[in-house]
């Protein structure tokens, strides 16, 4: 009888118990916890990540990464000190727009259409007409995999150049490309020294591409991929370049003062390259011909400037003005292109109260808890 239990009844009982357990799990009704959060950490102000300007139409277009908005201001706007903020002329935002984490904007000089680059969460570059506002569907949208960061146009050739962060790549598209259209050509590979490319500017006269790199390398070896860290750099390529090409020259080294060099702008006549130097709260200006470990010829930096964590920069060469998008405080600061040192901006367009500090939470994919200090860790 005892043997019979071991060999027959026990397995049957176990099988039955397992079956009951599995069925109970499958039939489980979840306890739904529907309650408001105790606390909600959220920046109430915009976080300006990119800026574009067109002085012919007085358009100033900025992207707000915090509230997923594209906003148009009059470029002549100057928020009075006593005002809480300046209201934009229009806002494009919502789930129909294909615009979410926008980190690059461009204004078509002829049509005044707005091109918006999603740097994260959406693989789209939507294009909006001059009358677009609210939660609108874009006129067209181009699928761009791999997290682009900044674009620049060659209007003569009707081409769009952009940096692609994930693949350490530059991509060149037809300006009117849409849907799943592929790039006409790319610059990519171990020889390119593209290392987490961010900013991109074009010297249309000398047919050169300038690219700012954070320095995060991704080597494709025979045994697979692996990473490297390098100092930040600006690498220079021919505009017609393609494939795994070496840069024509590289600006890199401690004298350059680069610290997360982000968006860039190029002044054709002055042959100067402007760099939004995010982690140094500064704007660096280099000569177009610079190479190696060189100091910038001008640096806009200091408490009077109001520059704080600037990823975005735009140049109005016609009127000689620089527009800086600050994420560390909700403002666009405007300077003469020749500004140098700790100088006050000629105008400031605020999207929030003066002195507001940006939380700069962006696509928080995780959260941690420091139980010793009782603090919440939020990585972007």
């Amino acid at each position, binding site marked *: 009888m005892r043997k019979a239990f071991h060999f027959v009844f026990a397995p049957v009982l176990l099988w039955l118990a397992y079956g009951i357990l599995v069925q109970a799990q*499958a039939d489980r*009704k*979840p*306890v*739904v*916890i*529907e*309650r*408001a*959060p*105790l606390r*909600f*950490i*959220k*920046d*109430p*102000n915009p976080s300006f*990540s990119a800026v574009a300007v067109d002085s012919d139409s007085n358009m100033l277009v900025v992207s707000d*990464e*915090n*509230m997923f908005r594209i906003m148009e201001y009059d470029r002549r706007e100057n928020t009075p000190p006593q005002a809480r903020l300046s209201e934009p002329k229009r806002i494009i935002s919502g*789930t129909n727009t294909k615009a979410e984490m926008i*980190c690059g904007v461009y204004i078509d000089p002829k049509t005044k259409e707005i091109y918006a680059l999603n740097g994260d969460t959406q*693989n789209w570059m939507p294009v909006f007409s001059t009358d677009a506002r609210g939660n609108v569907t874009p006129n067209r949208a181009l699928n761009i995999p791999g*997290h682009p*960061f900044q674009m620049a146009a060659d209007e003569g050739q009707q081409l769009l150049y952009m940096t692609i962060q*994930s693949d350490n790549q530059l991509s060149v598209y037809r300006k009117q490309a849409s849907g799943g259209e592929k790039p006409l050509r790319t610059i990519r590979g171990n020889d390119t020294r593209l290392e*987490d490319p961010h900013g991109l500017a074009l010297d249309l006269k000398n047919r050169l591409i300038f690219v700012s790199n*954070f320095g*995060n390398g*991704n080597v494709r070896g025979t045994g697979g*991929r*692996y*990473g*490297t860290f390098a100092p*930040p750099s600006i690498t220079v390529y021919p505009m017609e370049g393609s494939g795994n090409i070496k840069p024509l020259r590289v600006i890199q080294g401690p004298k350059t003062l680069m610290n997360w060099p982000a968006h860039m702008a190029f002044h054709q006549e002055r042959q100067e390259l402007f760099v939004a130097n995010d982690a*140094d709260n500064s704007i660096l200006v280099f000569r177009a011909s610079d190479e190696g470990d060189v100091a910038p010829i001008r640096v806009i930096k200091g408490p009077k400037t109001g520059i704080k964590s600037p*990823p*975005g920069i735009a140049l109005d060469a016609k009127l000689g003005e620089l527009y800086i998008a600050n994420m560390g405080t909700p403002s666009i600061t405007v300077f003469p292109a020749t500004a140098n040192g700790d100088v006050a901006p000629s105008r400031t367009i605020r999207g929030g109260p003066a002195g*507001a*500090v940006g*939380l*700069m*939470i*962006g*696509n*928080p*994919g*995780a*959260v941690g*808890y420091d*139980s*010793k200090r*009782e*603090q*919440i*860790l*939020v*990585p*972007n």
Partner: protein
Amino acid sequence: MAHPQIAIFARLANGGQTPVRALYGQASKLSRTMHDVRYDAVHDEIVVPVPYAQAILTFRGGADGQEAPIRIIQGPKTGAIGSRLDVDPIHNEIFSYTGNTVTVYSREANGDVAPIRVIKGPDTQLKRPYGIAVDPVNDILVIGLNSNFGSDEPITVEDTESLEKGGILIFNRTDSGNVKPRGVIRGPKSGIIRINQMQLYPQKKLIVGAMPGIIDNMEPEGAFLGVWSYDDNGDVPPKWKIPANDRTKLKKPFGVVLNPKNKEVIISDMRNQGVLVFSVPEIF
């Protein structure tokens, strides 16, 4: 995402309250897509993956500003690093993944080191691992899987026919090679489309995972934070869930961490660009 950083807030921070400190800048070696962060309370360290440089960085627990990491795991032997990890401070190991392979490194490793063991192969059911969490007390390793949206095929949001949903695989902590998971939670009743950050609660043997829905949807239907048991297996609904809706204010939960002392669940939410703290005493 234009500005990489680890912002650090007081536990009681609320609204637009500014962080008490932040790690950022060239010296920190941080970069975007840090989709995990772990505080190792035993050694007072912060551990974070930086997939753009294929590295795992370890900082002092009190690190602040433009501070350099104290250890870096990176190089040809290390290989590619995924965007998530977890730390086992008891057995001194860091768990991450690359491709469809789970990789385990020595916690104290520094430089170009190879994994000390891997889990990979057809029996493992590892496909697009995305969330990862380890329980050093009960010797459990849990892997959250991503859906194929935006990764394997150029499918659209409406193309649900070809949407291969994710799930949760449960392994033993010391598993190695081509091993079968001891449990697989997957299927329509589970509600899982993909799993992002996960936490384990050893005292109650619970798996807590953020389920943000279809990646391309800005405000997806059916997103939630789910709590399952280590013993769950098959198409099993969560024991508890905090759904995304107007009441909870959740929209697209990406990250989660537990604060057992105060019986709080802390959730980072992508579409809110913020962090929400819930009192959930029933799960602790």
